[in-house]
């Protein structure tokens, strides 16, 4: 069963911005799916269309087999949405917000109250239940939106940058929570700018840029593309002779800093051997940036160059 099937989806906003230029995407039931892309790529637009907050201008969307055009009510019932921007009433209390949300989906009030307790507790918000939403911190507001999205126990949870502006500790606990929800069978689609997050959580991934899907693969497949890692070495040297290193792409940044690209299979020993032969000590070493981020940037660049043909 496909949780989501998108074909040839297009969106041109009033004013002429062509946000989606015909994208195809499928997400299997039970999947944990990442939608990545730079700012303005069209992630939120895609999510907006799936959750019927944005009208599409072309293409077809099916949610668990329900076509958005012909079976909107069934399609909507399957989705829980955590939007990118806070969109709850600032003066309503947490409890009012989540219980009302359940009401919009037709969940009777007694059941809604039980679920409110369950999810607010799981998301560590129960203490604040009678506070107006505006008094929450940014991270709490994000969690409130997750609790709200789960109140009708949807089959699919869509999160648009759920961890933006959330500290590391809370982000970790949100990951654990989402993994657990997914383990219980809820399909999850998530957008993020933190590649680490996608790597930690997601099994499948699509990269979108300028309204086009430029990569759609498994997380493993993507990581397999990472053949190289770049290390930055801090050196202590006795002579002024230039550093030589054969068999490795490298860059001498200054007298004491060396950048080396190391293929996965090669290992670092030959680098150290060659350096000690030159009486150069390695004082310290670090991994340069996030490898996945590099890959992401190169994919986006490749996509853009390809697109300009």
């Amino acid at each position: 069963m496909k949780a989501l099937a998108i074909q040839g989806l297009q969106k041109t906003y009033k004013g002429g911005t062509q946000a989606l230029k015909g994208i195809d995407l499928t997400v299997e039931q039970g999947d944990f799916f990442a939608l990545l892309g730079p700012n303005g790529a069209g992630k939120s637009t895609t999510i907006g269309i799936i959750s019927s907050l944005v009208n599409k201008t072309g293409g077809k969307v099916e949610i668990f087999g329900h076509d958005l055009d012909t079976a909107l009510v069934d399609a909507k019932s399957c989705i829980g949405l955590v939007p990118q921007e806070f969109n709850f009433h600032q003066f309503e209390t947490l409890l009012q917000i989540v219980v009302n949300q359940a009401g919009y989906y037709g969940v009777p009030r007694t059941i809604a109250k039980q679920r409110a307790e369950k999810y607010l507790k799981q998301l560590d918000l129960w203490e604040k239940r009678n506070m107006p939403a505006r008094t929450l911190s940014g991270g709490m507001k994000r969690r409130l939106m997750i609790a709200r999205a789960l109140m009708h126990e949807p089959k699919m949870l869509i999160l648009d940058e759920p961890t933006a502006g959330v500290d590391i500790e809370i982000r970790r606990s949100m990951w654990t929570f989402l993994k657990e929800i997914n383990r219980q069978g809820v399909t999850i689609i998530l957008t993020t700018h933190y590649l680490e997050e996608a790597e930690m959580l997601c099994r499948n991934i699509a990269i979108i840029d300028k309204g086009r899907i430029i990569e759609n693969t498994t997380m493993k497949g993507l990581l397999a593309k990472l053949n190289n890692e770049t290390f930055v070495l801090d050196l202590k040297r006795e002579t002024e002779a230039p550093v030589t290193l054969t068999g490795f792409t490298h860059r001498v940044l200054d007298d004491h800093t060396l950048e080396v690209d190391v293929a996965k299979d090669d290992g670092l020993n030959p680098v150290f051997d060659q350096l000690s032969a030159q009486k150069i000590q390695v004082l310290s070493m670090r991994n340069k940036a996030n490898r996945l981020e590099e890959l992401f940037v190169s994919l986006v660049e490749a996509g853009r160059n390809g697109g300009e043909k």
Partner: protein
Amino acid sequence: MANRNFIALRTIWIKECTRFLRIWVQTLVPPAITMSLYFIIFGNLIGSRIGQMGGYSYMEFIVPGLIMMSVITNSYANVSSSFFSAKFQRNVEEMLVAPVPHWVLICGFVGGGVARALLIGIIVTCVSMLFVDVRIHNFWVLAITLLLTATLFATAGLINAVYAKTFDDISLIPTFVLTPLTYLGGVFYSLSLLPDFWQMVSKANPIVYMVNGFRYGFLGTSDVSYLVSIGLLVGFNALLFAVAYTLIHRGVGIRS
């Protein structure tokens, strides 16, 4: 299905009522104060100099009109500001992502406006009882006119909010259309006082029919037939509901 819609409707309605009750100082107190002032100044002080109007003491004459006036302004104001702020803060999206049919959404918001209008109607009636013996000639005409007027202006407020882009936009219509039409709608005078020409012009003002239908319910006297009033109200309600439905359905102002 029917049950789900009912739960959704009740949820929106309760949410709307909670909203205006939460900010009661802004929503319930001002009309009570304004109307008390009208009663004291026009009814008592000036009214005693005016004498009879349409066969009744001036105070008795204006009570129905003033109740109607507060019902009109409050049903309109409630829905226009509530829906606009839901749009502005984007919490209307909570309803738009859920399988809430558009008629349920409209009825929920309109229902909230009607609840506030009726509550204020009751408050103003109670205030008026301090000044005059309130008699009721025909309860059903009174109730139906009141209800239909409240739904009509609540729906109008919704339409205003759909189009509004700024908070200013939701005070334009009340200031430039609603208030003049209400003041010229026979709240303070009987149309028979006007020259023929102005009587005719006045009959193009829909609020004249609402005020008079309502006055008939109280006093049994009216410048126009209450049946015409009710008929017009039903017609206008159907028209505005259709407009509101089309707008919401198309997503005007709420879906990009």
